[in-house]
């Protein structure tokens, strides 16, 4: 859907790249070059990727390690330690799965002033199977000291988040909006969401304010979270939708405010239910002694081997508008007790 030239025959690999990067890639390139023109410390480190515009304008600062995620973060650490600001283009799940040690023990231990911009969070690479499913990157990223973890839900928010990530001194991972290869699939219609406010580290974004249930979500999952809230609205159930775009530091006050002002909280993420956004919110609630009906909706503790397009693959694990809505209905009915 984002192939730059539909008449050009594309190899599968190229096709994936074009489609997965999509419009976020052009924003990324534009923003990156804009920053690099102002700051000679900024360099690009790709992983079998090369930003062509950056290469054209700043060839001496453009590096592509090839298919070598470990070396990518090792090199980025070396660059940052010498005062450069490496912008690392990464692919979930290979970063952080293939280079977690380099992320933790080198990139973050040295408090590298580098930025990892990652695409394909969650089930975006649905049809490729488990090798390309990112089920745990939020869980892994948030456990690493020094690392700031941000997520943009769409291109518009990415454009706001990128300058914030660059201005922050220290390691940042910015999870870009997953561009999903599922032409015409249900769930990919444009959303009528409000214009994004300023992007702030440590601040969540309230997309919608209700009073019955609060949905806390991130990334692509915000699409069906939003749609579930719309569905519930037709039944008279008012749901809030919170975009937890700052995953670390987590906006704990937004979680607590949601708990105070709603009868139920549900987290929705295209990640394993273990360790991700849901777990982070549960930690906040538990440690603050807050008792509120609470559910995590995410990928159950399993691999997703029943594959199709994005919508089909999500349906197999219950990551749909209707399941989110149904979970909320049940919680409101039972007071959150297990049926």
């Amino acid at each position: 859907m984002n192939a730059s030239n539909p008449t050009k025959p594309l190899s599968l690999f190229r096709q994936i790249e074009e489609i997965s990067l999509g419009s976020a890639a052009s924003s990324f390139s534009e923003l990156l070059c804009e920053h690099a023109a102002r700051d000679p410390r900024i360099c690009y480190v790709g992983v079998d990727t090369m930003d062509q515009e950056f290469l054209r304008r700043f060839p001496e600062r453009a590096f592509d390690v090839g298919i070598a995620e470990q070396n990518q973060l090792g090199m980025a650490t070396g660059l940052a330690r010498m005062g450069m600001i490496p912008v690392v283009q990464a692919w979930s799940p290979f970063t952080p799965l293939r280079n977690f040690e380099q992320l933790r023990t080198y990139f973050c231990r040295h408090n590298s002033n580098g930025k990892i911009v990652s695409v394909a969070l969650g089930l975006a690479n649905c049809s490729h199977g488990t090798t390309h499913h990112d089920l745990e990157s939020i869980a892994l990223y948030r456990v690493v000291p020094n690392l700031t973890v941000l997520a943009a839900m769409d291109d518009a928010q990415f454009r706001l988040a990128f300058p914030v990530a660059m201005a922050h001194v220290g390691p940042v991972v910015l999870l870009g909006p997953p561009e999903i290869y599922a032409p015409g699939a249900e769930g990919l219609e444009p959303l009528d969401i409000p214009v994004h406010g300023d992007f702030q580290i440590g601040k969540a974004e309230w997309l919608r304010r209700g009073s019955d249930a609060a949905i806390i979500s991130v990334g692509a999952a915000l699409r069906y979270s939003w749609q579930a809230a719309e569905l519930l609205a037709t039944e008279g159930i008012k749901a809030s939708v919170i975009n937890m775009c700052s995953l670390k530091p987590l906006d704990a006050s937004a979680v607590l405010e949601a708990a105070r002002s709603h009868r139920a909280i549900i987290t929705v993420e295209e990640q394993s239910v273990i360790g991700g956004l849901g777990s982070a919110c549960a930690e906040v609630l538990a440690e603050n002694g807050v008792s509120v009906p609470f559910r995590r909706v995410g990928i159950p503790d399993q691999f997703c081997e029943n594959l199709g397009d994005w919508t089909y693959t999500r349906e197999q694990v219950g990551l749909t508008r209707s399941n989110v809505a149904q979970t909320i209905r049940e919680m409101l009915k039972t007071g959150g007790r297990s049926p």
Partner: protein
Amino acid sequence: MPIANPIRADQAGPESILSSVKSNAKRAEHADLVSRLRAKAKFLRYEGLKLNSRTLHAGAALSSADIIACLFYHVLRLDPKNPAWADRDIFINSRGHACEPVYVALADLGFFPWDDLQHVEDFGSHLHGLTATTTPGIEFSTGALGTGLSLAVGAALAQRVQKRPGRVVIVTGDGELQEGLFWEAAMSANHYQLDNLTVIVDRNGYQSNDRGTETVMRLEPLEQRFAAFGFETRRVDGHDPEALLTALETLPLAKGKPSAVIADTIKGKGVSFLESGHIHCGRFGRDFEMSLLEKALQELEGQPV
């Protein structure tokens, strides 16, 4: 040191006499340097082993002492008074282990007070069991094996972008060359033609549990492997400063290529029972009787320079 081809005065014109005097002076200077480095290596072994009731890696500390002496007392351009000097060379102790000679050299050069050496691995000490940036003069915290070259490639690229004159020199153990990341990084050092980057392999031939590298996972032919990855390669006696300098004084070994110096060494060099046991890990007072430390130090002290 004997002069190989003395020129007889009656055979030479005035210019060649002058050049002969100059080269004789140069040879004498070189001989002085070599004997000074031998003395420093002995000093690093002795003082380093004294730390070994606190640290763990006596075998590699002793095998790398001559390499470290050549680097810190001659090859590397460093300023202990200004460790962040922009034009400095960057040293990376890839394995993080075998910190003893590095710590002794840094203290001796004045990067931190000599007395700090009494606090290696003490609670809260800047001197960790594996080299870390808490210690002045240590550029990178290391210890997870096989990572140093990747950091070095990034640092060397930064030097190039920033037009700094410094070079990057890393010392690796040989066992850690079994890590895949090392060869990812080697590929990139060649790709970017990093002739400001040098790898020195402390080729002592043994890894943990005191097993030979060739028994565990064969590394040879190491020169050919480095060469195939685009490095200009030398193989030298890693306990002979003169041999080490033939490689390290002429860096880069080839323009446009990263350099690799495979330094053949002996694990535990200078202490007979450590040499024969190929000891990887060993702490006096834990793995060895403390009385053996005294014996080992005496052995080191008795060695000729």
